[in-house]
């Protein structure tokens, strides 16, 4: 795979939050992160294309899907919080 070299500036706080493995291979980490951003932008672009073809989605038609997505996010947050508490209690 062809690669290009770029000089980047990284927030040290972000760097400190990374695992040792991630910091060891920073190029791979940056590539992974950029792939995700590119995928997110591709999904946004897809929606923009549909809206250009068929008109913008209305709040009304998106409402049940947004509701499902937000309730899933809330349930996941609860799940993670519970695991954190149990993990903390387990260590204590």
């Amino acid at each position, binding site marked *: 795979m062809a690669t290009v070299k770029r000089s980047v500036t990284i927030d040290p706080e972000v760097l400190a939050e990374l695992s040792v493995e991630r910091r060891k291979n920073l190029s791979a980490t940056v590539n992974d*992160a950029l792939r*995700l*951003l590119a*995928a*997110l932008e*591709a*999904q*946004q672009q*897809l*929606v923009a294309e*549909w*809206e250009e073809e068929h008109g913008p*989605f209305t709040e009304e*038609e*998106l409402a*049940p*899907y*947004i509701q*499902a*997505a*937000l*309730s*899933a*996010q809330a*349930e*996941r947050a609860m*799940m*993670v919080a519970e*695991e954190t508490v149990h993990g903390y209690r387990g260590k204590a």
Partner: protein
Amino acid sequence: MTRRGVRFSLITADTSWVIAAERDPTAARRHIAALTRVGQLLVVSPVVIVEARQRCAHVGAVDVVLARLRKEPLTPEDGMRASELLRIAGQHSGGGRAASARIHEIGTTDALVAAMAERLGRIVYSADKRHLMWLKDAGARIVVRSVPF
């Protein structure tokens, strides 16, 4: 993951979601638009691609759906976890022949979807969530949501 203060997460879908999307592309577009609004990036696993292409009415139509979704590779660890979840789901059904039947009914694909979801953003969308709920009962740390397709 944060993008200049905007949070987004990876979520996934099972085969039933892809089949439903093939049957009702308008609903699928609405769903993806809604996910985009709330910062959820939809990814599909290779096993879902295989199963969806086998089960769909028109391969061409499902390929149109799949072509625009991000593909996420599975890992050997996903395989180990899927195996463990299937084993526990089988035990929950009573063991013996019932366990084999339950494992067969859930299938490898949904077990791998659950394992991958645990590794990513934990959220799985499904048009038929029975199998995933059995896997959740077996200990999969996932959130299963059905979509009104």
